[in-house]
């Protein structure tokens, strides 16, 4: 305690000393550098938990990002790993063990000192199979116990039962809990702490007085006094409040609003370019699905899927639905993922004629404007998507019109999300779905459960006992190979091949990659929106807000 108090005094003195210089610098550069202030923005759903280990929704993830202290942080701008609570770390040759050297003299928000015991406790909690933590599951490559070993008061090593690919990156999501604090998970190591929660209305975060980090001038971070997070699912209301100055930023902006805002005040909006998120269409290829057999045969034909893909005008999807703030998607990974994106992939071509040729090879023919299969069945199917997502609804209607041109009749049905999920994951009673995939990390291991044929998120045909097609078997092999290799180039080669197979087979017909759009008020200083989540407040500890 003494030690910390001493620190605090020094810091106060330092801050005073620098304050003058900074104010002068601020005036000279015309930048407001006022300390403090309150940052206000919206969460779009109710945070389901404040326990960082159980985070599973966007709102809770945002709060974890702002309040949780992590050992290693992925810098959202440079996309590089940086030391945080760990001064340094080392992953063993076999990829099973990671050892950390921790910073000293750090305390939780309630004053409880931070020790290696806390790291050990956090990892044990995280890896408890009964917790079903999504963060924990990312570490679980094999059954068996995780062992933690405290080497010295500042050193700890963690041994996993099998190799974990990209082990160190995963710690970006692990907020360290206190073993001894009476405040449990509300004692945090991040820049802010939860001060007040009004369910359904707002979450108030206050600066963590014990936050360890300082800026280059030695000033204690964060600059902000507090962050007010309004829980508001309605984007119209969010936009109104932003326009009225009741909010300081909009983290993910709809393209429609982006343009409206840009035409009035272009200095407020930021287009950070294509993000990692994709929107895709896929057909139901599940063997036991309750759909007519002849339809399943269409959906299981690569020729049919390629033809559909070629008949969709992705340029129009991007231009009309996203007002140009999206790029036609080339494959599983967006070009924004600079290292992992396969540069050999070509932009998808729009060609109804080639689509018809591909269909002819499968025995389809056009009769009086209606496409019929070999047996004479008219080609008609339904596309479902979640209600309330305007972009997806509009894409579905454009695709409906595109496919009408090659004689395919599409019925668009919007469903509430739980009904959609039930059809998609339990009853398999659907024909085609448009849905998006959100990527929070750059590494392909993030998508292990999407590409492995045995996985639950292998949506077009999940949980296969053995791969039902040779190309799915090959993807399985490649995904496992890249996960168990420490060599980045070998991993890259394997995943490039996965991307090529997916583009050739079109199990997911990737449509577009959305741009990362945001709006930031001129009151906010230091904002630099990026494509990685959380786009606008990734550097919240260094933001300041003036005059509210």
């Amino acid at each position: 305690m003494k030690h910390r108090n001493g620190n605090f005094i020094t810091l106060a003195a330092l801050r005073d000393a620098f304050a003058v210089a900074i104010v002068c610098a601020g005036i000279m550069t015309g930048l407001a550098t006022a300390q403090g202030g309150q940052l206000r923005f919206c969460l779009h759903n109710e945070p389901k938990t404040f326990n960082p280990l159980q985070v599973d929704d966007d709102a809770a993830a945002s709060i974890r990002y702002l309040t949780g202290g992590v050992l290693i942080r992925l810098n959202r701008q440079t996309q590089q790993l940086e030391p945080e609570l760990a001064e340094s770390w080392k992953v063993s040759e076999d990829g099973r063990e990671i050892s950390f050297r921790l910073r000293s003299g750090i305390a939780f928000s309630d004053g409880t000192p931070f020790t290696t015991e806390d790291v050990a406790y956090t990892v044990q909690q995280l890896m408890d199979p009964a917790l079903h933590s999504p963060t924990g599951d990312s570490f679980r490559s094999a059954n068996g116990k995780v062992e933690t070993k405290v080497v010295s008061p500042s050193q700890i090593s963690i041994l996993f039962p099998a190799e974990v690919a990209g082990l160190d990156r995963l710690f970006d999501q692990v907020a360290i809990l206190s073993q001894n604090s009476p405040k449990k998970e509300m004692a945090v190591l991040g820049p802010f702490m939860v001060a007040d929660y009004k369910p359904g209305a707002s979450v108030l975060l206050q600066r963590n007085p014990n936050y360890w980090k300082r800026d280059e001038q030695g000033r204690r971070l964060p600059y902000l006094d507090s962050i007010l997070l309004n829980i508001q699912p309605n984007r119209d209301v969010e936009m109104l409040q932003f326009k009225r100055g009741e909010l300081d930023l909009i983290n993910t902006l709809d393209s429609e609003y982006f343009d409206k805002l840009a035409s009035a005040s272009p200095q407020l909006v930021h287009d950070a370019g294509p993000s990692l998120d994709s929107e895709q269409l896929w057909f139901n290829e599940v063997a036991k699905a309750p759909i007519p057999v002849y339809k399943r045969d269409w959906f299981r034909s690569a020729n049919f899927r390629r033809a559909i893909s070629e008949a969709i005008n992705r340029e129009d999807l991007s231009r009309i639905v996203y007002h140009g703030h999206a790029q036609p998607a080339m494959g599983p990974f967006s070009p924004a993922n600079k290292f992992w994106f396969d540069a050999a992939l070509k932009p998808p071509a729009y060609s109804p004629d080639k689509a018809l040729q591909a269909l002819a090879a499968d025995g389809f023919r056009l009769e009086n404007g209606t496409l019929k299969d070999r047996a004479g069945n008219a080609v008609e199917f339904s596309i479902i998507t979640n209600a309330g997502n305007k972009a997806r609804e509009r894409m579905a209607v454009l695709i409906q019109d595109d496919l009408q041109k090659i004689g395919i009749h599409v019925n668009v049905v919007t469903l509430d999300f739980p009904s959609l999920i039930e059809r998609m994951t339990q009853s398999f009673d659907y024909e085609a779905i448009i849905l998006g995939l959100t990527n929070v990390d750059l590494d392909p291991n993030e998508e292990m459960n999407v590409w492995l044929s045995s996985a639950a998120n292998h949506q077009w045909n999940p949980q296969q006992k053995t791969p039902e097609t040779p190309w799915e078997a090959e993807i399985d092999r490649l995904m496992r190979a890249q996960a168990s290799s420490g060599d980045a180039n070998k991993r890259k080669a394997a995943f490039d091949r996965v991307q090529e197979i997916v583009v050739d087979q079109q199990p997911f017909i990737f449509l577009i990659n959305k741009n990362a759009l945001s709006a930031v008020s001129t009151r906010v200083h230091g904002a630099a929106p990026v494509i990685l989540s959380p786009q606008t407040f990734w550097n919240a500890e260094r933001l300041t807000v003036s005059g509210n």
Partner: protein
Amino acid sequence: MFWLKAQRENKMHSLHRKIAGHLLALLATVLFGGLLSATLVRLAPGFDADERVLDPHLNAASTHALEGARHRDDNILYFYFSYLIRAGHGDLGNSSALGQPVRALLRERLPLTVRLLGIGLGLSWLLASMLALSAAWLRLSIYDAMTTIVSGGLLCLPAAVLALLSVLWNLPGSIAIALIVFPHTYRYAHNLLVKIYSRPHILAARARGLSEVRILFRHVVPVVMPQMFALAGVSVSMAIGAAIPVEALCGLPGIGALAWQAALARDLPLLVNITILVTLVTLLANSSADVIGSMLRGQEA
């Protein structure tokens, strides 16, 4: 309360019995309503579906655990009766989506909704009865056409638009509630009053030069009040319906917003409690309207 004086002793006695009977029927209906709503929620598709299974980070065991989590509520009768027993001890269960005790959630949010609906309903009744009365008094076709267009316009605007407008113009949510409910009640009130005022004895009374206030209280109120009370009773459930979009859009953390959240998440414990609450309020409002209405009829006869 001039009419109460006229009640005789035995009438008071029958009144008590009537109220007791109403209360018993009310309780039975509320309990049945709770069971029905639980069944509706349980049978609707998507009950077993949890959004979280789409998270690619989760492994098979966790996905399986999520999918199995709700199967313990498979037997709806068992669920409901164990809920009732616990509710008898004051435990309303835990919200499955928000992980908080339902009792705390309701207690936190009830005051806001009560205030919102109270003010909103008061305003809409005031507006509806004033406009309807003035229309009946004036009997001007221009005035009639104007109120018809105004109330028609409000009726044709989606509730969400009215709620958004109140956000846009910084008006309290209760005004949005009032504007949503008003056109629904206004037309009934208008038609009823116009009909009464066109009855021969009232026309005659007006021709004799009786004062409007006297006519209103002697000839109009006794005839039209039972219906007006019934209307007021049902407008409570209209307002509850309107509270859902208004609270959600105006960022008001009340029961309406909670109900919508619970519906989307198929939060069975929360939904059953909210339905029981709504049924209780609806029944209380309508039964008291019935009782008052039948007493007024007794007075008239």
